[in-house]
């Protein structure tokens, strides 16, 4: 095992870098991080639209969310692979196709987190904010969002973990992330696939498990602080 790690450790971590572009675990992190980063502002807009009373905003946002949550990421990936070159007229690298698919996919899930966060705040807070004369956007800015965003943090961390796991599927279209690298190692080694794939599992397990533990701790802290403050709060249900 030790020689295996010595031989392939960096390969798992960085893909073919520096000979080829960054891949492997680093590729996974980039896909997840950049994907979530870009989808976040989108998600806030869509999440807001989902809390709106106005059907002009609510309906398209709902269609977006329900559709993207209702089909497998694999289908979204294939759609992106086929549709983006058709629409833009340019060929896209597997990496950017995968990134686009992840951004679109995550925007729907993150939007639901935003929506749950906003709606999970006790009604009294919005009422009090409106009662002192604050308008809708003012209430959001000074009262609702500061509290809701803090409440959403554990969910966002969980979503990052989810996204890291979701990126594993893009190896199918040839993106050099962690799972793709493991397949390559398996092709090179031929024997002892147990070792190859257990190492792969570990590379996912360590960060995902670590972040899950962190998120559970944050959730406990927020819950404890809320109890101490005696603020009536509903559990955020997604």
């Amino acid at each position: 095992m030790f020689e295996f790690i010595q031989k392939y450790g960096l390969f798992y971590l960085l893909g073919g870098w520096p000979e080829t572009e960054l891949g492997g675990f680093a590729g996974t992190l980039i896909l997840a991080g950049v994907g979530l980063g870009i989808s976040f502002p989108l998600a806030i807009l869509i999440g807001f639209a989902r809390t709106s009373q106005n059907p002009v905003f609510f309906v398209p946002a709902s269609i977006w969310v329900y559709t993207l949550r209702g089909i497998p990421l694999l289908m979204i990936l294939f759609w992106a692979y086929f549709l983006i070159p058709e629409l833009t007229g340019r060929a896209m690298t597997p990496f950017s196709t995968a990134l686009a698919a992840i951004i679109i996919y995550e925007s729907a899930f993150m939007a639901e987190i935003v929506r749950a966060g906003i709606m999970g705040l006790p009604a009294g807070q919005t009422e009090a904010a409106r009662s002192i004369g604050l308008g809708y956007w003012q209430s959001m800015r000074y009262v609702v969002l500061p509290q809701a965003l803090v409440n959403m943090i554990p969910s966002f961390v969980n979503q990052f973990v989810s996204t890291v796991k979701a990126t594993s599927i893009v190896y199918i279209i040839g993106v050099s992330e962690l799972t793709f690298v493991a397949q390559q190692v398996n092709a090179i080694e031929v024997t002892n696939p147990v070792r190859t794939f257990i190492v792969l599992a570990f590379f996912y397990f360590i960060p995902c498990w670590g972040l899950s533990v962190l998120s559970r701790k944050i959730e406990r802290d927020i819950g404890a602080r809320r109890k101490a403050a005696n603020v009536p709060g509903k559990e955020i249900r997604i």
Partner: protein
Amino acid sequence: MGMDFSFLAQEEFLLALVDGLLVTCKLFLASWVCGFATALVMANLRDVRFAAVRFVVSVFLEYHRNVPTVVQMLVWYFAMPELLPDSLRLWINRGNTEFLFAWVALSLNVSAYFAEDIRSGIRAIPATQFEAARAIGLSALGGVIYVILPQAVRLTIPTILNRTLILFKDTSLAMAIGVSELTYQVRNIENITFRAFEAYFIATVIYLTISLLIMFAGAWFSRRFTVAYR
């Protein structure tokens, strides 16, 4: 980019789609049932007195929740056969056991999530409910059956249905190890007919229909059975 659904008229493609859908549904239902059964066992083992058992269960749960589903499938497909005695391995290499591996992988994966959901559901019932049940003369078992479980089930239905939806979508991952479910068939059709848009469109509609059914079942149960706790 005109649309041309005419390939549907050809029997082989229609059959392929139906076949794919059937495999998807079989995989989904089989995994759900085994996953739920396993989860019931795990949920109970989670809190036994023996630390060794708790540890093993813990590892099982954390592994299946933190490793991507497709990687779990790959582990079963590539790695497990190596660990088996030669006779079994020959049998595996002969038959098409991809479905079996996908089924096992998905069942264990979903069981880890179901186990946590079930456990949270039971823990969410205030202990006072159990005390009240004993106070009116119910035995411990009676208390669980008539007071705790009905409430726990109502609490957990939304999360269970949410995870069910994810399981349904995850069946598409089985194509990675060669299971001819819906996505696999659609890709195949696309390769042959080059009608990517139409093929993907049909798959999307099928997936969406079933997903929306599951989603709305979840919402309906949520509303119908919401138990108010002060």
